[in-house]
């Protein structure tokens, strides 16, 4: 019985930690499928988490109560989108090096968010901790009665259910609509897409902006389900794990989703170690480095081959054919 309890707790932790990764890696799929490197996912997440925490504090103070979490959630997405506009402008319109641009966006997000927190919260290094404006767990009738799975997966945060739906939506959008075809064409062969009359630059703007929005939601999720506030350490590497998950998931929404769940296990295991005696012998550091090593092995073709979109990272210049 204690075994089942531990397993249930492990599943619950895994889904909670995987959710931000699902959002951000979905964002990565949109950006990279359109041909723009998703290096700035971390920055979008930071900015989304910052905006969600700050706005939730304000909403809480003005009497929104638990409902304040919802506007805060979407404001987090919008903040990520706002930041991604910079990346889109630099890398699509100005044709700057996408790696440099993504790197600068991350740099800026970190400095600006902590700076603004200090400005808004009178010099404190973190936002006030939310008491009401956070997501509560939603139980799904009947399903939540399934043993182990019920209380851990079917009685979880609304942001997790939404993320599951977003995976399905992203898959349908990217693989079963003309828009998805156009987006993937822009990333696969920008020149050919332009010849076919597609507005490559506009499509890439959309890809990057969607990625900013989704990763921003991912950052907001961390605040509204896990930490309850924002500090310099709220987002520390989740954006890069999401990037890894997207690659591991072969630039496919469902793949990214499964990989995010898998990488969430890493964090779940970390907590499990502290809970159960038999897991204490696994070194924590070994678990933490596992997702990254795995991603490297996948990339190197030792565990199935990963193929990036072919025009990824190349600026599209209509004057050069």
């Amino acid at each position, binding site marked *: 019985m204690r075994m089942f309890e531990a397993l249930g707790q492990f599943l619950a932790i895994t889904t909670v930690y995987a959710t931000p990764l699902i959002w951000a890696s979905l964002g990565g799929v949109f950006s990279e499928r359109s041909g723009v490197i998703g290096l700035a996912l971390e920055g979008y997440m930071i900015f989304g988490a910052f905006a969600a925490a700050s706005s939730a504090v304000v909403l809480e103070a003005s009497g929104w109560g638990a409902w304040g979490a919802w506007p805060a959630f979407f404001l987090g997405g919008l903040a990520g989108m706002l930041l991604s506009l910079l990346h889109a402008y630099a890398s699509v319109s100005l044709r700057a090096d996408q790696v440099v641009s993504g*790197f600068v966006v991350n740099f800026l997000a970190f400095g600006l968010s902590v700076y603004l927190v200090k400005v808004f919260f009178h010099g404190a290094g973190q936002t006030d901790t939310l008491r009401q404006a956070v997501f509560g767990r939603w139980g799904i009738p009947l399903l939540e009665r399934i043993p182990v799975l019920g209380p851990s997966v079917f009685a979880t945060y609304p942001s997790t259910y939404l993320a599951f739906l977003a995976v399905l939506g992203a898959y349908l959008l990217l693989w079963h609509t003309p828009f998805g075809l156009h987006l993937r064409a822009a990333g696969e062969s920008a020149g050919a897409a332009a010849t076919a009359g597609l507005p490559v630059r506009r499509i890439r703007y959309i890809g990057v902006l969607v990625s900013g929005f989704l990763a921003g939601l991912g950052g907001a999720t961390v605040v509204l389900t896990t930490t309850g506030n924002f500090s310099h350490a709220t987002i520390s590497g989740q954006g890069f794990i999401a990037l890894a998950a997207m690659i591991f998931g072969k630039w496919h929404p469902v793949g990214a989703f499964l990989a995010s769940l898998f990488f969430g296990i890493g964090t779940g295991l970390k907590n499990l170690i502290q809970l159960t005696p038999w897991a204490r012998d696994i070194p924590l550091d070994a678990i933490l480095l596992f997702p*990254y*090593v795995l991603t490297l092995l996948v990339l190197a073709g030792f565990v199935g081959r990963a193929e990036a979109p072919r025009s990824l990272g190349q600026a599209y210049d209509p004057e050069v054919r």
Partner: protein
Amino acid sequence: MREFFVSLIALFLGLLVGAAVMLFGGYNPLEAYRALFWSVLTSPYQLGEMLRESTPLLLTGISVALAYRAGLFNIGAAGQMYLGGVAAAWVGIAWELPPVLHAGLAVTAAALAGALWGALAGYLKAWRGVHEVISTIMLNWTALYLGNGLIRAYLLDPNQRQRSRFVAASATLDSPTLASLFGQARLGYGFVLALLALVVYAVLLERHTLGFALRASGLSPGAARYAGIPPGRSIVLAMGLAGAFAGVAGATEVLGVFHYMGIAAALPNAGFDGIAVALLGGNTAPGILLAGLFFGLLNYGAGSMQFVAGVPLEAVRIVVAAVLLFVAVRYVFERWVGVRRSAE
């Protein structure tokens, strides 16, 4: 010379953006910048600490620049630096040797550890087709957890739990002479090493056939292959050398400043600031020197800016980000002008 002026303009614009951000936050930018620059440049102790702050930036700047000249983007300087620090700590703690030799071997071990980590990314690029930007990001995190695990397993200070034991006195890079010149600042031979590294970098790249081979591979892999320079080997070599410089950066911190290696939650900032240094310095040795000193000044002076003018430290990160953005746009502008010229 024109390059230099364009960098200067990017710097100026970056400071301007920083001033705007400070005004928005309700701070006085003039007072902030005065505190940032003036206090550091007028006190020998603070000047010494600023040079200490610049030391790893110069080395990681060289690391990123060297890879860049060979056509590669090394985002992995942070991880290479971290493992370099672990290797230096290991030799400094576990070995017993006479003074100069001990420090020398510890630095060498750091260079080798960094080189290995860099070369791994090079190998993945050359033979398995993995883009170095992605592989170095993954290797960064791997280095962090691997290093932490090694410290925990072999070097941990039983009383502290969060850091290694102290390195032996024979392995430190402390220089009583330099320290007393700068009011007992933690400035030692690490800074001298960084200056030497700049000379090595300049000579290697400008005067040595190896440097020519690397630059040729960076400019045109096809032409390099035609000239008998195997591109795969160049990539591994460039990333390995880049890693070595970053590894030494880790050694200067462990052996010269802290004398122990801490278990870290995040990678060292200096690894990422190296990208900024290389970009602003235009990947040349004199440029890296100036940019490294400047960012060292910004990072160190941020403390007194916060203390005197009450402006949060992070304002400096915004300045750096803005400077980088202007530098990136400068390349775009130059390319744009180039395209126009070739079209005429």
